[in-house]
C-alpha cells in the first residue's frame, strides 16, 4: 500500500468533519476526492498533511504510521500539498518564492549563512537550480523573474505547484487547483497533472470541476458529511445512485 487512511476521524467540538474514512491512494495515479461543500475534503487533506491532529484513526505512508507526525516531517518523507490560496511574498520574484521549497533537503544552518561556508554556497546553488527546474516543469520559465504580485491567477496556481514540487515529493495533494480559473487554463492544469504522474509523482486532488475530474482521474472517492459514500473509477462514480442523490439532495455547489 502506498498511502492509506484507516478509520480516519476528525471532530471539532461536537461536529464530525471526517468520519471513519478508509481510503487508499494508488501510486502513480491521479486520485480525486469530490463531494459537496462542507463534506470534509479539506479537513481530510489537513489531517494527512499533519496540519490538524486526527481524533482517531491512522494515516499510513509506505508502511509507516505518520498520523502523529508534524507537517514538516511529513513533507520530508515526500508528501507535499498545495492550498486553495497560496500566500506568496509579493515584493519578491517568482523564482525567489520557489527557492525556499527545496529548503527541507538542505542542511546549512545559520552559522553557514553567517560564515558563508562552502556548504552554504553549494546548497544555495542547489535550491536555485531546483527552483529553476520545477518552474520549467510547470511552464513558468518566462515568469521566473516577474514580481509575485504581477502574475495572473493561473500563474499563481502553477507557482503553488512548483513550490510543492520543489520539495521532491512522491505524492502531491492539490486542494482545488482549478478554482477561480477559466476552462482553457483548467485544461492546461489537467495536462500538468498528467505530466506529474508521468514523472512518477502520485497526485491526489480535491476538485469541484466534474468534467476535469472525470477526464483525468484514475480513482475517485466521494465524501459527504465527512463520510465516504463511494469509491471507484469515474465510470463507477457517475453511475452510483448514492452519489447522485448526495449531489442533488445536498447543496448543488459542485
Amino acid at each position, binding site marked *: 500500500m502506498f498511502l492509506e487512511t484507516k478509520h480516519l476521524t476528525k471532530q471539532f467540538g461536537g461536529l464530525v468533519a471526517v468520519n471513519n474514512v478508509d481510503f487508499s491512494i494508488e501510486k502513480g495515479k491521479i486520485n480525486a476526492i469530490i463531494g459537496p461543500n462542507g463534506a470534509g475534503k479539506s479537513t481530510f487533506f489537513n489531517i494527512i*498533511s*499533519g*496540519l490538524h491532529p486526527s481524533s482517531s484513526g491512522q494515516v499510513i505512508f509506505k508502511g509507516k504510521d505518520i498520523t502523529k507526525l*508534524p*507537517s*514538516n516531517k511529513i*513533507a*520530508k518523507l515526500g508528501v*507535499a*500539498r498545495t*492550498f486553495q490560496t*497560496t*500566500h*506568496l*511574498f509579493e*515584493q*519578491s*520574484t517568482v*523564482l*525567489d518564492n520557489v*527557492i*525556499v*521549497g527545496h*529548503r*527541507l533537503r*538542505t542542511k*546549512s*544552518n*545559520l552559522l*553557514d*549563512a*553567517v560564515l*558563508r561556508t562552502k556548504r*552554504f554556497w553549494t*546548497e*544555495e546553488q542547489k*535550491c*536555485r537550480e531546483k527552483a*529553476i527546474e520545477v518552474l520549467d516543469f510547470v511552464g513558468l520559465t518566462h515568469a521566473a*523573474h516577474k*514580481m509575485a504580485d504581477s502574475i495572473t491567477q493561473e500563474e499563481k496556481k502553477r507557482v503553488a505547484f512548483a*513550490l*510543492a514540487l*520543489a*520539495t521532491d515529493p512522491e505524492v502531491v495533494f492539490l486542494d482545488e487547483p482549478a478554482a477561480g480559473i477559466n476552462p482553457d487554463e483548467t485544461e492546461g492544469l489537467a495536462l500538468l497533472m498528467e505530466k506529474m504522474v508521468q514523472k512518477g509523482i502520485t497526485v491526489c486532488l480535491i476538485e469541484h470541476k466534474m468534467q476535469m475530474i472525470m477526464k483525468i482521474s484514475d480513482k475517485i472517492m466521494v465524501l459527504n458529511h465527512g463520510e465516504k459514500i463511494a469509491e471507484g473509477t469515474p465510470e463507477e462514480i457517475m453511475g452510483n445512485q448514492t452519489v447522485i442523490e448526495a449531489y442533488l439532495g445536498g447543496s448543488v455547489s459542485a
Partner: protein
Amino acid sequence: MQAFLNQKTITAAFILLAVAFPILTQNNYFIYIVTLSFIWMIGVYGLNLLAGYTGYLSLAHAGFFAVGAYSLGILTVKAGINYWAALVLACLITSFIGLLIGLIALRTKEHFFAIYTLCVGYILYLVIYNWESITGGVRGLIGIPAPSNIGPISFQNPLSQYYLVLFFLLFTILMMYRIVHSLSGRTFIAIRNSEELAQTIGISTMKNKLVVLVLSTFFAGLAGALYASFIRFIGPDIGYITITFDLLMYLLVGGIGTLAGPIVGTLLLVWVSQYLQFLQDYRMLIFGPLLTLIIIFYPRGIVGAIYSWKMKLGKKAKRTSDRGKSSGHDKGTGSMAEKKVEEG
C-alpha cells in the same frame, strides 16, 4: 547589474561617511548623538529580524534591551567582572531569557503573541523596578565603567567609543545581511508569509522562530549593554514600553522588513528629535500620528517606498531593453561584492 553596483556604492559611501563623520564634524555633541543612534540601530535590527522578516511583533524588546543593560551594569559594578567578559555574558543572558520566553511565547500567534510579549516586557520592567537589592530599584545603577582598554586602545573618550559602537553596528549589519540573504533568511520570510505553507514545505517553524527570537534578543541585549557602558547610568525606565515604541517607530519609519530601514529610520528620527527638543515629552504628538500614517500609507516605510518607486522605473526600463541575464548570476556576484565591501 546596475542596481547592485548602486547598492555597493551606497554601502561603501555609508561606511566611509560613518568612519569620517567624527573628523568632519569635530563636534562632540553630534558624535554623542550619532553614537547613541548607532546603539539604537543595533536594537532595531534585532527587532527587524523578528517582526520584519519573521512576522512576529514583539512588544517586549525594551525589556530585553534593559536585561542586556542591567546584566552588564550588575556584572561590572557589583560583581567586578572584566568589561569584555561582562559584555559577552550580558548578550548571552539576554538571549537565554529570550530562549526561555520564546519556548512559551512562540506557541502563540499574532494578537496573542503581541499581547503576551507586551506583558512579558512589563514583567521584566516590574522585576527590575522592584528588585532593589540587585538592580538598585528606581534609583538605578550608577558608575558603570566604560569599555576597558584593549592593549593600547582606550575607550575613555567619545571618539574611540564612537568607533567601537560603529564596529558593533557594522558587525550587526553584516550578520543581518548574510542571514537575510541565505536559505535561513528565506525560511524566515516563508514563515512570515504563511506559517501553514511553510510547515507543509518541510520547515520546522517552531525551531526557526526560536532561533530568530534568540538572535533578536541577542542584538537587543548587545544594544542594551553598549548603552549602559556608553551612558554609564541606567534606570528602570529603559525597560519601559515607551522604549519598545521608540524602537518600533525607528523601524517602521525606516522600513520594516528591509535591511536599510533601521539605519534610515533611526538616523532620521533621532535627528528630527533633536530639532524637536523644545517639544520634549510632547514629541509623540508628532510621532504618534506619523507612525499611524506611515503604517496606513507606506507600510514598508521610507526604504520600502523607494524600492517600489525604483521597481516602477525598472519595469519601464525593462520594457525597452532585452530581458537581462540570469539574475541568479547577478545575485551571486552582487552578494560577493557586498561581502567584500562590508568586510573591507
